[in-house]
C-alpha cells in the first residue's frame, strides 16, 4: 500500500497537469483559429447570406465566385496590391536580411573603435516603434519630393535593428574565429569568407531574421498610409483598409474586404509553413547561447 500510494499520486498528478496543459493549448488554438475560421466561412458566402446565416457555418459555397468578383473589381486592383505587398515585403526582407547579417557579423567578428557604441545605438533602435518614425520619414521624403513613390515605402523598410542584434548574437555563437582564421590562411578574402563560410553557419538565424522582417514590413501599415496617394502603389493592407472605410457608403465592398483579407493572409501562412523548421532552430539557438 505504502509503496503503491506515491506512484498513484504521481500518475494522477501528471494526468492532471497534462490535462490542464492540453486544455490551455486547446483554448488557445480555438482562440486563434476561430477568427480565421470565421473569415473563411464568411468569404465563402454571398453578401445576402453573409448577414442572414450562421456566421460560423457554411451556407452556399460561393468562395470561387467571390474570388472572381474580387479579382474583377476595378480592373483587378486587388492583384496589383498583392503584387505590391510581395515586392515591398519580400524585397525588403531579403535585402534587409543580408544587410542585417553583414552588420551583425561585422559587429561580432571585427574589433574596431566604437563597436559597442554602434551596437548600442542600433539596439536602441529596437525600442523605437515604426509608428513613431512614419511622420518624420514623411517630412524627410517630402523635402526631396519623393513621397508617393515605390521607394518612399521600400527604402525605410530595408533596415531592421532587431535583425542586426540577432545576427550579432548568432554570429558570435556559431561562427568560430578559428574557422575564419583558416579561411584567411587559405587565401579567402573577407567578403568571400562572409558569403561562403559565415552565412552558411548563420543560416537558421538568417531565416529567423527574414521571417521577423517579413512580418514587420507586411504589418507596417502606417508608413504606406502616410506616404502613398496612388492606388496603384498600395500594399494590400492599405488597399483593404481603404475599402473598409467606405463600407458605409458602398456596402458591397464589405464582401470584397472579407475575401481580400482571407487571400491576403495566405502569403504569410505559406511563408511560415515553409520556413517554420528553420525558424524553430534559429529561435532555440539564439535563446540558449
Amino acid at each position, binding site marked *: 500500500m505504502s509503496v503503491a500510494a506515491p506512484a498513484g499520486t504521481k500518475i494522477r498528478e501528471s494526468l492532471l497537469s497534462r490535462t490542464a496543459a492540453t486544455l490551455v493549448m486547446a483554448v488557445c488554438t480555438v482562440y486563434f483559429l476561430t477568427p480565421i475560421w470565421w473569415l473563411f466561412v464568411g468569404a465563402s458566402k454571398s453578401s445576402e447570406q453573409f448577414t442572414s446565416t450562421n456566421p460560423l457555418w457554411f451556407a452556399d459555397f460561393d468562395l470561387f465566385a467571390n474570388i472572381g468578383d474580387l479579382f474583377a473589381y476595378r480592373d483587378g486592383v486587388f492583384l496589383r496590391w498583392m503584387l505590391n505587398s510581395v515586392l515591398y515585403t519580400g524585397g525588403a526582407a531579403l535585402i534587409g536580411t543580408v544587410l542585417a547579417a553583414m552588420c551583425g557579423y561585422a559587429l561580432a567578428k571585427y574589433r574596431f573603435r566604437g563597436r559597442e557604441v554602434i551596437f548600442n545605438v542600433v539596439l536602441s533602435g529596437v525600442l523605437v516603434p515604426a509608428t513613431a518614425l512614419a511622420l518624420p520619414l514623411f517630412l524627410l521624403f517630402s*523635402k526631396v519630393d519623393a513621397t508617393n513613390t515605390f521607394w518612399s515605402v521600400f527604402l525605410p523598410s530595408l533596415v531592421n535593428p532587431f535583425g542586426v542584434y540577432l545576427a550579432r548574437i548568432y554570429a558570435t555563437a556559431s561562427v568560430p574565429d578559428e574557422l575564419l582564421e583558416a579561411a584567411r590562411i587559405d587565401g579567402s578574402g573577407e567578403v568571400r569568407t562572409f558569403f561562403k563560410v559565415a552565412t552558411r553557419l548563420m543560416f537558421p538565424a538568417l531565416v529567423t531574421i527574414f521571417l521577423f522582417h517579413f512580418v514587420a514590413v507586411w504589418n507596417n501599415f502606417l508608413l504606406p498610409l502616410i506616404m502613398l496617394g496612388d492606388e496603384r502603389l498600395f500594399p494590400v493592407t492599405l488597399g483593404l483598409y481603404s475599402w473598409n472605410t467606405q463600407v*458605409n457608403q458602398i456596402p458591397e465592398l464589405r464582401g470584397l474586404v472579407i475575401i481580400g483579407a482571407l487571400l491576403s493572409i495566405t502569403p504569410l501562412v505559406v511563408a511560415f509553413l515553409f520556413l517554420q523548421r528553420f525558424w524553430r532552430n534559429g529561435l532555440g539557438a539564439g535563446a540558449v547561447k
Partner: protein
Amino acid sequence: MRTAFRAASALLVSALALTACGSGGDDEPGGTASAASCAPSSGPVTITYTTWIPGIENVVKVWNDKNPNIQVKVQTGPNGNGGTYQNFFNQLKAGNTPDLGHIEYDALPSFRVQDGLFDVASCDIVAKAKDQFIPWTWNQVSFGDDKSAWGIPQDSGPMALFYRADLFEKNNIAIPKTWDEYAAAAEKVKAAGGYITNFSQSDINQFAGFTWQAGGRWFANDGQQWTVNLTDDKTKKVADYWQNLISKKLVSTVPPWTTEWDNAYNSSSAWTWVSAVWGANSIMSGAPKTAGKWRVAPMPQWSAGEDVAGNWGGSATAVFKSSKHPYEAAQFALWLNTSEEALALLNKEAQLYPATTAGTKYSYLGNPVEFYGDQKIYEVFAEAAGKVTPDFTWGPTMTSTYANASDGFKAAVSGSGTLEEALAATQKSTIETLKSQAIPVKE
C-alpha cells in the same frame, strides 16, 4: 486593422497638437481674408486631386479628354477620418498638399482654422456659380460669410423616413408625420414584436441630423471666437425624446454599420430608419430579403404643419492654399460638382447626391426604384434638400467632439447616464479641446 487605426488616431492626436502649437491663435475663420489672387495660369497645367470617391477616375477621364491643358491627376486613400485628413494635415506641414482635396462639411472648419484652404470666392467663376447651389450647402463652405468660400459643395445628405410599408399596413399603424406620432407608433410596433428603429449609439452624425432639423445649433463663429452650444433647448428636446424611447426600450441599439445592424433590418426587426438619401443604398444591400417592402416619406416634424428636414453627411471639394493653380483647380471643381455629365457619373459610380438645385431635378433621379416598390424615392429627397435649414455650423474639432459624444451615448444606451448628460460632458470636453489647440472660444 483595428490596432492600425488606433495607431493612426494616436498619431492624429499628436500631430494635431503639433500643428496647433505651430499655428498659434492668430488665425481664425472669418478673420482677414487671404490676399491670394485667383488668376488663370498660362500654358498647360496638371492638378492633383485627392479623394476617396470610388470610381472617380472614370469621372476625371471625361474631363481630361476634353481639357488637354488642365489635366487632373487623382490620388486616393481611405476615407477622411480613416487617414486622409491626417495625411492632408501632414502635407500642409510639409508643404506638398494636392491642389484639390475631398473634405466633408464637418471637417472643413478644422482645415480652415489651420489656415490650409484657399478662398475660392476670390475666383470670379466661383462667385458667378454660387447661385446654382442649394443655399444651405453653400453655407456649409462659406460658414455664413458672404464674401468667402472654402470649397465647392459636392454632395449632400437630406434626410427622410424609410419605413416598412407592409408591416405598417398589416398592423394598422399610420405613417407618423410628427415625432409625437412616431413615438406613439413605436409603442404599437413594440406590441407587434418589432422595434420602430435602431438608435445610432456610436455614429453621432445621425443625432446631429436630428438636431439640425430641430433647430439646434452646436457651433457658431463670430469672426473672433467660437461658441459651443451642445446643450441648447432644441438639442435637449431631441436628446430627451430619444432618451425616452431608449429608456422604454422602444428602439433597438445595436452598433450601426455592423452585420448585426444589417440583420436587424434584414430580419424585419427594425421597421423604420430616419436617414439620409445615401441610406437608400445601405438598406438595399444590407437587407436584401426586404426588397419591395420599403417606402420613403418626409422626416417626422416637431410640430404638425411644420416642414423642415435635417441633413446627414455631404462633402466639399476644397482648394488647398499651397496650390499653384487655384483658378484651374476651382474650374475643375465647379465642373465636377455642377455639370450634369459629372453629377450623373458621380451618382452612378458612388451614389453621390448633388448639392446643386438643378442637380436634384435631373432625370436620372426621377426614376422609380424597384427595391422601394417602384416609388420615385429621390423626389422625396429632392424636396427634403430644399427644406434643410441653412445655418448649421460645424466646429473645428469634430473628431474629438464625436468621440466624446459617442462614448457618452454608448453609456446612456447601456443604462448609465442619459443622452443629455452625455452632451453636457461633450460640451465641456469640446471647449477644453478648443482651448488646448489655442482656438479662441467663448466659455
